[in-house]
């Protein structure tokens, strides 16, 4: 303990350099924790998917639509208990920067199949009764300050929906009852959109509720079989697989985000190691003096390595806590793509540990240099 004061005093020798080192580690850990939050959010949504819901999309890609006639065919498949559908609308609210998910749904069946969308009975009734009505997640409502009765206008984002703006009235603010549903989405009547669409009767994806989760494979196969060799072949899978395929539209996110995080961490590690090495080089005489006074090699090693460890752990803690505050405080939104987007306590701990790891690895070479310093050579270099 008596060496801790000495170590901290050394770290404060160049306040600016120490602050910059702490900051660089903080930024690396901030990025790492935020990227982990993205992956965890997708993971949570996938894990929370219902085992009684299966999703049918076009076999080529979910960006292609299917005719409404598919609905009756799917409903007729044994094992399908209920059916609903939705379309990605891709509307723009004032500015493309205000991105959030907005989808056209068949309201009655959608709310039936997704009990996780929680509305008051009054809100539900008002939404179902109003063709231009919409419901918004409470997170989204908070983001834009919307409340029931507000008028929202979306510009068309996908040409198939025409050129004129779409006005909506907020009829309800829903709460999410599970990670499978986020609170950052806007939903409205599929019919309202379909009426003005240049291609009528098109559907993005069907969601079937099946009676027995154990029959998921058979039911999925039976649905796809119905449309085999037709111009609109389908691919039916579990909601979990659908969530995954939705994510995979962005490419291999795990690899992409993992690579970014790794690159940032390795770069920071080199920066920290270089800073520590510079610091040790500047202190050559001091270290030689301490060795002359009788400080053991391992004590010198511990002092230098401890300095790096302290700085980087501090940076790690700063970055992780900042990520938690900013991400969890919804200051960094995910536009509704990630239902449960947040930096968990585990990720904060991992972030701090990562900072400590950077400090340890970055400190090893400079600390070894310092410990192995030949006293006479070091003193002669200055004298």
């Amino acid at each position: 303990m008596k060496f801790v004061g000495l170590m901290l005093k050394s770290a404060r020798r160049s306040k600016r350099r120490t602050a910059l080192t702490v900051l660089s580690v903080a930024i690396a850990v901030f990025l790492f924790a935020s990227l982990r939050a993205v992956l965890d959010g997708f993971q949570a949504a996938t894990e929370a998917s219902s085992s009684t819901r299966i999703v049918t999309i076009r076999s080529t890609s979910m960006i292609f639509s299917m005719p409404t006639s598919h609905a009756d065919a799917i409903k007729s498949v044994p094992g399908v208990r209920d059916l609903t559908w939705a379309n990605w609308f891709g509307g723009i609210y004032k500015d493309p920067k205000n991105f959030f998910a907005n989808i056209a749904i068949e309201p009655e069946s959608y709310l039936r199949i997704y009990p996780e969308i929680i509305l008051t009975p009054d809100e539900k009734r008002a939404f179902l009764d109003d063709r231009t009505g919409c419901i918004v997640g409470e997170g989204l409502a908070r983001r834009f300050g919307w409340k029931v009765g507000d008028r929202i206008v979306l510009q068309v984002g996908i040409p198939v929906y025409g050129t004129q703006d779409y006005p909506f009235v907020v009829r309800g603010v829903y709460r999410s009852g599970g990670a499978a549903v986020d609170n950052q989405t806007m939903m409205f009547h599929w019919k309202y959109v379909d009426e003005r669409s240049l291609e009528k009767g098109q559907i993005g994806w069907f969601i079937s509720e099946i009676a027995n989760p154990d029959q998921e494979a058979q039911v999925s196969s039976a649905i796809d079989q119905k449309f085999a060799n037709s111009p609109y072949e389908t691919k039916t899978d579990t909601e979990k697989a659908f969530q995954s395929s939705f994510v995979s539209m962005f490419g291999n996110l795990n690899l992409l985000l993992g690579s970014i995080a790794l690159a940032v961490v390795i770069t920071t590690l080199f920066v920290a190691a270089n800073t520590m090495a510079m610091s040790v080089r500047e202190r050559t005489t001091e270290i030689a003096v301490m060795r002359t006074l009788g400080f053991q090699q391992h004590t010198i090693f511990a002092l230098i390595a401890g300095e790096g460890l302290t700085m980087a752990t501090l940076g790690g803690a700063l970055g992780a806590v900042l990520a938690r505050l900013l991400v969890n405080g919804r200051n960094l939104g995910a536009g509704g793509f990630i239902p449960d987007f947040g930096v968990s306590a585990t990720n904060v701990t991992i972030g701090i540990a990562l900072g400590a790891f950077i400090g340890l690895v970055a400190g090893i070479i400079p600390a070894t240099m310092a410990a192995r310093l030949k006293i006479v050579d070091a003193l002669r270099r200055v004298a």
Partner: protein
Amino acid sequence: MLIELREVTKSYKRDALEIPVLEGVTISVPEGDFLGLMGPSGSGKSTLLNLLAGIDRPTRGTVRIGDTEISRLSDRALAAWRARHIGFIFQLYNLIPVLTAFENVELPLLLTSLSKKARRDHVMTALDIVGLGDRAQHYPRQLSGGQEQRVAIARAVVTDPTLLLADEPTGDLDSKSGSEVLTLLQRLNQEFKKTIVMVTHDPHAAERAQHLLHLEKGTLVEQQGVVG
């Protein structure tokens, strides 16, 4: 005898060349002595001092301080021995700039098992001896060169070492400050019975020593009052 060097030779390797610095030096110094080491640059006097301090090792020969033949100690044992037996005073003071005078003097005591209070008492005693008790909380940059060297002396004596080694202690000081430092060293020798070996170029500084030893090209050329 406190110090006994027998046939000590030291040479350095520079690429393929072996450069001799000390050749067959044999000296004995009694406890309580104040020995001055003189000689021109490159004569080997600082190397001799480094060998006595245990921060360098002889190529051949033996170095014995008290009962310990330090040339045979491992690096680890040598560091522990230095902490207990050696007080070193550098020409350029070499105080740690981010530590106060108090903390600089306390530095060698961190290697002991003394309590915080005991360390504090030792540090204040050492600073009082060098006349800087009132400057304990000053940083090196807030002190004059002479004061810095006195703090360095306090750091060297705070562990009550067996041997005080001074490498050109007045080399970077004006004559007044240099004289104060030499008076302090004399006092440590006479009043506190410290054995001191001092390397110096300065004849005035050398006058303060009880005995003198001259080195030239790595060999002893003249001894005044030293058992050879």
